[in-house]
């Protein structure tokens, strides 16, 4: 089959690879009809994530049609149309039973590697390094889906792919980010990063009762989307100081809830941004936590910091500010299965049409070019959907 594969920094190719097969009795094989490139795929593309191996199949935002099921699969059958969430969860362990699906104890075959890194292993993910499972991803014609009764969600409502595809990651991720922010009535919510997760965090913040949403970015079309589609006030961090502007907007209190939808590869400004670039260049730190630092500084005392953005390793943040300002930090990979049903309902009810973020549609064969376009934010690219 054809698949997008990782060959090193800024080197993604279309390769012919073997078709996946059923291995375990709860596996299913899905023929992919649509698959997206995620902002977190760019961390792989930019060579930031260790334990990638040349030839790994990328992609964790797929959907398609079930073409084969293992002997113990009960809820899916051939011909079902499914969206596949990016986290792989067994459904049986204590974490899955308590709906903390991204912390699944059983789905990472390379758990030992993750334990060495982090002390414990989170769930395995599709197409996201060997440390996090080593599973082939969904930017391909076919995908093997383990624990098929637990992950994929059946979509039989005839909605087009582009309206349901983003249930695979960015919509639930934005929603959980807003939920993690503990938004109370009339709260001011600041969202750093107006990519797809940021846009869905903005939408979700309104759903959860925010009184005001402020969106921060430097890419004009993303700020425009946050204004026009997200009803947000915006700050272009290249043209104004974010802290000063947020204090002016909130009478010096700072936003009640801050969401970092940027993560490890933040583009900082000034000395701080330069220092991050130098330190990561010298391998003194693994992340560029510019946004995290700024959010900590801006957040009101006793407020909440929600971090859907991906971080990788050692990072330099002013933890003294977190402690002395009594901030609550909530983060984690998205507990996908917790959100699939209710969010599908919001799409089916017409409450939200997630396809608003989609700017580029192309064939899988065009994947390598679009990785570059998306990474460079060229051509006003916000979200890419590929069709195998």
């Amino acid at each position, binding site marked *: *089959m054809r*698949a997008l*594969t990782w*060959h090193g*920094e800024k080197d993604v*190719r279309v*390769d012919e*690879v*073997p*078709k*996946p*097969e059923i291995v*375990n*009795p*709860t596996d299913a094989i899905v023929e992919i009809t649509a698959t997206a490139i995620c902002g977190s795929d760019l961390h792989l593309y930019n*060579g*930031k994530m*260790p*334990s990638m*191996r*040349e*030839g*790994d*199949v990328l992609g964790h935002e797929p959907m398609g049609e079930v073409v084969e099921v293992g002997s113990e699969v009960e809820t899916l059958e051939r011909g079902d149309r499914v969206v596949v969430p990016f986290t792989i969860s*067994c*459904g*049986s*362990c*204590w974490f899955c*039973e308590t709906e903390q699906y991204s912390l699944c*104890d*059983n*789905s*990472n*075959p*390379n*758990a*030992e*590697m993750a*334990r*060495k*890194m982090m002390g414990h292993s989170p769930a*395995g993910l599709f197409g996201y390094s*060997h*440390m996090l*499972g*080593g*599973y*082939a991803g969904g930017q391909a014609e076919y995908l*093997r889906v*383990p*624990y098929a009764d637990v992950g994929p969600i059946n979509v039989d409502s005839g909605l087009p792919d582009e309206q349901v595809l983003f249930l695979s990651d960015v919509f639930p991720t934005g929603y959980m980010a807003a939920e993690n922010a503990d938004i109370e009535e009339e709260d001011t919510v600041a969202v750093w990063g107006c990519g797809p997760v940021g846009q869905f965090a903005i939408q979700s913040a309104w759903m959860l009762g925010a009184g005001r949403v402020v969106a921060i970015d430097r890419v004009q079309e993303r700020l425009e989307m946050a204004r026009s589609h997200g009803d947000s006030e915006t700050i272009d961090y290249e043209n104004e100081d974010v802290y000063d502007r947020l204090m002016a907007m909130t009478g010096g209190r700072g936003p009640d809830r801050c969401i970092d939808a940027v993560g490890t590869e933040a583009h900082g400004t000034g000395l701080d941004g330069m220092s991050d670039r130098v330190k*990561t260049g010298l*391998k*003194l730190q*693994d*992340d560029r936590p510019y946004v995290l630092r700024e959010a900590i500084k801006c957040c009101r005392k006793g407020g909440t910091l929600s971090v859907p953005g991906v971080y*990788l*390793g*050692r990072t330099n943040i002013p933890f003294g500010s977190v402690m002395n300002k009594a901030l609550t930090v909530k983060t984690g990979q998205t507990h996908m299965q917790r959100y699939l049903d209710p969010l599908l309902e919001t799409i089916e009810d017409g409450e939200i049409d997630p396809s608003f973020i989609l700017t580029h549609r192309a064939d899988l064969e065009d994947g390598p070019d679009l990785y570059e376009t998306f990474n460079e934010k060229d051509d006003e690219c916000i979200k890419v959907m590929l069709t195998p």
Partner: protein
Amino acid sequence: MFSYSLDTAADEWSDRTRDPALSRSDSDLSRWKRIGAGAVGGALVAFGLGRRSLGGAAIALVGGWMAYRAVGARSEGSTGAETVAESITIGKPADELSEFARDAANLNRLVGPFADVTALEADRHRWTVHESPDQRLSWETRLVEDRPGDRLRWEPADGTALIDGWSMSFRPAPGDRGTEVTLEVGFAPPGGSLGTAVIEKLDVVPESLVGGVLDRFKSLAETGEIPTTEGNPSARGRGDLL
């Protein structure tokens, strides 16, 4: 001072978790032993390493204790004897788990690619390490402690044993979390040329072996299957570690 690249570490990791049938003969395991089992951890902790090597200063920051342990292990003498204990929590009752672990066929699945375990009698098993020189690394074990739901211990009865004790203890976990299972394994490579061959050529990192057994135990008990990337497609072919 230690210096290694993350890619090398990841490759070596893959070598360690490789299905023996796919093993590359050119993997430099003696280098692995020199670095010590902690190196992969240290290298992986040193995120974003890319293709550069890691200097001593960074190790001191992120992987110092692992490097220290690797040095410590090296200076303990050359016998390679070591006892490793690790614990895991499994969401099943202790009785059920100890009954499962008594069975040679189940043990064989738990032990994974490292060795074959076959039943001789109910409380006597035979262990044969894969890939050992001339299959000489084979021994019989006897169940010397048998307290269902509490503790099981096997010890070698004859043969050339790599493992001189295998104990599993079970105790209830708090709340609804099931059972805390501790696996303690004594590794004692035989002396002489065979022992040297084992340490140099056999791909055994005690902690990884013990951790892997517990992971498999938990997954089998809780889900009935072991997560795998067997047959995984990539541009390298089929099978994750080609």
